[in-house]
């Protein structure tokens, strides 16, 4: 995890960090504002696998010196990924879940959400944002979502997530105003599940 790859081996970041960063942020903002709605990413990036281009784009836009990133040891925490993030975001890559502002997980690991920062009753915003890489997202089918940002209800299918993830998310909802916020990253774009979203079958 600590090796710093040679600069010439390093894959590039955004071609235009200022404008791409802004555009990706707006996609995430829209995603958080309208939970369950698929947002195409306006700028992607040739990230070192297994970090997905969408997850990588979100990190390039939002992670930095003041926002540490935790990588799922099951596959994502490679020297390539950590080195790439350190170089392009300048962010600490941490091993302790509790200190992460952003945590990147593979869908298969997403049943265990224990140990990430949840914020405190006085400062509920001091909680982690999880970026979970899923193989596919589709609107209009799958789980039913309600809550702020959703007119009536909406549906979202997120493939590859274990049943335990949805249970953990229901528990997370009960912690409000504390809690985790989730960005699902799929090849076709991202969809968000902020802590306010209520998920039912």
């Amino acid at each position, binding site marked *: 995890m600590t090796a710093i790859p040679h600069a010439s081996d390093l894959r590039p970041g955004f071609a235009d960090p200022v404008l791409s960063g802004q555009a990706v942020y707006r996609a*995430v*903002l829209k995603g958080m504002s309208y939970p369950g709605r698929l947002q195409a990413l306006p700028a992607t990036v040739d990230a070192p696998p297994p970090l997905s281009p969408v997850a990588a784009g979100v990190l390039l836009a939002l992670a930095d010196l003041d926002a540490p990133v935790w990588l799922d040891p099951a596959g994502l925490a490679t020297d390539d990924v950590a080195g790439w993030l350190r170089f392009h975001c300048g962010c600490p890559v941490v091993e302790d879940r509790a200190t992460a*502002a952003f945590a990147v997980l593979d869908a298969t690991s997403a049943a265990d959400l224990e140990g990430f920062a949840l914020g405190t009753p006085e*400062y509920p915003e001091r909680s982690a944002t999880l970026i979970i890489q899923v193989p596919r997202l589709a609107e209009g089918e799958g789980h039913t979502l309600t809550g*702020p940002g*959703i*007119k009536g209800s909406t549906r979202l299918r997120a493939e590859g997530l274990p049943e335990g993830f949805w249970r953990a998310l229901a528990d997370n909802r009960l912690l409000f*105003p504390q809690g985790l916020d989730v960005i699902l990253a799929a090849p076709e774009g991202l969809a968000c599940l902020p802590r306010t979203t209520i998920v039912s079958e």
Partner: protein
Amino acid sequence: MQPNDATQAQDTLDGYNFAYLDEQTKRMIRRATLKAVAIPGYQVPFAGREMPLPYGWGTGGIQVTAAVIGPDDTLKVIDQGADDTTNAVSIRRFFARTAGVATTERTTQASLIQTRHRIPEAPLTEDQILVYQVPIPEPLRWMEARESETRKMHALEEYGVMHVKLYEDIAHLGRIATSYDYPVRVNGRYVMAPSPIPKFDNPKMDMMPALQLFGAGREKRIYAVPPYTRVESLDFEDHPFEVQAWDEACALCGATDSYLDEVVIDDAGGRMFVCSDTDHCTQRTASREAAE
């Protein structure tokens, strides 16, 4: 049909980053806005920066706008509902110069609207973001001056003092005497200051399709109301919330459903009433003339 009359920026400022703020500051603000959206009505502290405009003149709104805005945006800035008040002009110019974005006075053409003290009369859509300038973000401040205390009150959902304060008005005056910055409850949880908009505008916040972001620069807080979110003005069963109404219509466009400013027109104390939302008034006048 009206043509798109957005103005493309010219004469942009060299030597500064896009939208003035450096990228690290923007990321810090962007992260704060995302948490704000996830916790509707909760005030997220952020390390607000000194801006080249004075505190109290919209530095919070400006920082939020600077972090949100992109080259594809069309910006509208209003103060007291008007696009041509000096501070609105000054802020609109700031972004035209530092971000080179298109600006407009038309509510319907704007993708981003920064406002001080009003919500436009035209309903906002999902393709728009409304950024409020906030002087005092803490709705409990007038009952409890200490931040350390109000923070606990929000954490414990202890809002009794707010109801007591409103009820004291009813007991003494027969009605609630708060006419602007009238406190609201967001999604049934946090009590929030809507910024000093007239209470006339409060109902527009409820289930609004557009995202609402609030920036308080001097007090260093950012908060949000996500789209389609319940926003209730605090009231009592026997004294339900009600908004201002006028017996007069707008002297320029004849509107009877908009917020009116009272203008003194002569030394004898003569008055006339006109729409505070200048774009609303202009559009109504234009369509009336077209119909004639």
